[in-house]
């Protein structure tokens, strides 16, 4: 890794953090509608995971997708514009927060039905296997999603057909207000992969370098024909499930303990301690991220609403 790669990871994480903080404000002001699920606390997961993907590798995730979009190379502008429902948004304002995508960047969404994108991910990987592409499909989902039938159908099929998928469970300890052990028969989620004869491991999701390292190895193995593998990433969401969550299901002490493991703080210290970057250089990255997000908000607010004819566009490709 070059110095600028280290700084770039830092930059991405800070952009996500700032973008999420600004989104929360815009939501309070009524400028963002619908549901808004923030990625704050989980930035290291997708940043590490996606930092080692190749352009041909496909990424697909659930509705907590803003960070994933940024890591896939979508601009803060087109993400913010989508949140504001503008026609300049990545989905032309017709998807909203939960449905970000950019097919050209191999980012396949943004899916709001819990677990429903897992079968689709299996299909993306099938497409690559069928066409002889050496690509990996990376499918991210929450701990809660491992309890729905789609998860089991998709894992089973991926193993039966030896599909090149990396299943990535972001275990942030809760599905809405339900703690993992209250919803999942096995609370060590990676063990669910055992039932499908699939290799699995777990990694600390608050440490971007650890996520990156294990991801790089798994991509390699899968690219070289290992078949599907399962990665459980241990993480925590610092904010509520979505906006307006009263958070009765967890104690403030618990939240406080996790806040001490802020993924950006951990990486910040790592960069200083290993003398990869100076404090000034990191402050400069923070400043740039701030600018980028401010610019995105200005752009999104100034962007036009979708024109009325957009309503009937894109129902079908033909007719």
């Amino acid at each position, binding site marked *: 890794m070059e110095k600028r790669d280290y700084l770039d990871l830092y930059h991405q994480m800070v952009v996500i953090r700032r973008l999420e903080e600004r989104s929360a404000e815009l939501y309070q002001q009524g400028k963002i509608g619908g549901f808004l699920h923030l990625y704050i606390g989980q930035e290291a997961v997708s940043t590490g995971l996606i930092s080692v993907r190749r352009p041909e590798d496909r990424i697909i995730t659930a509705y907590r997708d803003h960070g994933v979009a940024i890591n896939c190379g979508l601009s803060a502008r087109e993400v913010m514009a989508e949140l504001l429902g503008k026609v300049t948004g990545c*989905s032309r304002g017709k*998807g909203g927060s939960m*449905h970000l995508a950019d097919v050209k960047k191999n980012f396949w969404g943004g899916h709001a039905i819990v677990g429903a994108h897992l079968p689709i991910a299996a299909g993306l990987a099938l497409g690559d296997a069928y066409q002889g592409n050496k690509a990996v499909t990376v499918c991210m989902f929450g701990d809660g999603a491992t309890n729905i039938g789609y998860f089991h159908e998709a894992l089973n099929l991926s193993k*039966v057909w030896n599909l090149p998928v990396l299943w990535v469970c972001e275990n942030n300890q809760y599905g809405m207000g339900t703690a993992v052990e209250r919803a999942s028969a096995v609370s060590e989620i990676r063990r669910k992969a055992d039932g499908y004869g699939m290799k699995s491991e777990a990694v600390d999701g608050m440490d971007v370098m650890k996520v990156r390292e294990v991801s790089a190895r798994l991509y390699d193995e899968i690219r070289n024909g290992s078949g599907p593998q399962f990665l459980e990433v241990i993480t925590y969401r610092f904010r509520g499930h979505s906006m307006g969550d009263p958070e009765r299901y967890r104690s403030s002490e618990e939240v406080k303990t996790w806040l001490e493991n802020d993924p950006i703080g951990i990486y910040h210290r790592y960069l200083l301690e290993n003398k990869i970057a100076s404090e000034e250089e990191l402050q400069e990255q923070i400043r740039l991220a701030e600018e980028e997000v401010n610019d995105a908000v200005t752009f999104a607010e100034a962007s036009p609403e979708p024109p009325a004819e957009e309503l009937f566009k894109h129902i079908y490709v033909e007719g």
Partner: protein
Amino acid sequence: MARITMREAISQALWEEMERDPSVFIMGEEVGVWGGTYAVTKGFYDHFGPERVRDTPIAEAVIVGAAIGAALTGLRPVAELMTINFAFSAMDHIVNQAAKLHYMFGGQMILPLVIRAVGGGGRQLGATHSQTPDAIFAHFPGLKVVAPGTPADAKGMLKAAIRSQDPVLFIEHATLYQTRGEVPEGDYIVPLGKSTIQREGRHVTIVTYSKMLEISTKAADQLAKEGIEVEIVDLRSLRPLDMGPVLESFKKTNRAVIVEEGWKSYGVGAEVASRIYEEAFDYVDAPIKRVAQAEVPLPYNRTLEQMALPQVDDVIKAVKEVL
């Protein structure tokens, strides 16, 4: 032109499309080694091999879901659901994913996907295995829903569906597989979303599709003996619904009977009738009649089952009521 069965026509369309385009492949339960539950894909596995004729686990959500994913990568999967009754286990992927991805992501995602599913009652399979839930699927914009009633249309529309850039639910009828008809050889395409006049007549319009085309034709034959000339419009596609030939015919006959196999409530007949009232009210000479399945879960007992399904006599009675 050869006279072949509906099964052969469907099989021929699949075979020819797979020969023509290597991105077309089949996946579903028992489509391969077994040869297809209804023998539609008999011989395919040996000819095209396991990569292109893929036996799946009994897992409808992932059958449709994985077909969606593969379609997103540019392939043209034909996913087979053993019967349409099992589509309910894949409902989310059909109506929440397939029907919505193109629109919801602003036109970025393209799904050239076909879901084949066989439906219909009349074989004493009991309530869970005998349904005609076509209208449910036709409710959703973004999905194309077609149900041909003749072997020629089955071939031509399946080819059109496979070549279409949009997700298509292709509904077959279990008791039509043995029906024979003239089917053009080779590249024969029937565009989706076009209804057609299957029989000309001047006294009354019957609007129908799929299996009920056969029932309606039998009724028309009998009525002809009494001097009643029935015009039959075959919808063929439920979504998009082409009202053109329906309205054209109705403006000539001023009377209509709509015959469908599914339940009457919230059904195809309800939709077509209200469209006629909305778009041709001035031409209405008699209240429009609907013939449909009795509002019960279809019973196993043969007599009861036949009582519940629309019969030739029901159609004749309805025609006489509107005359």
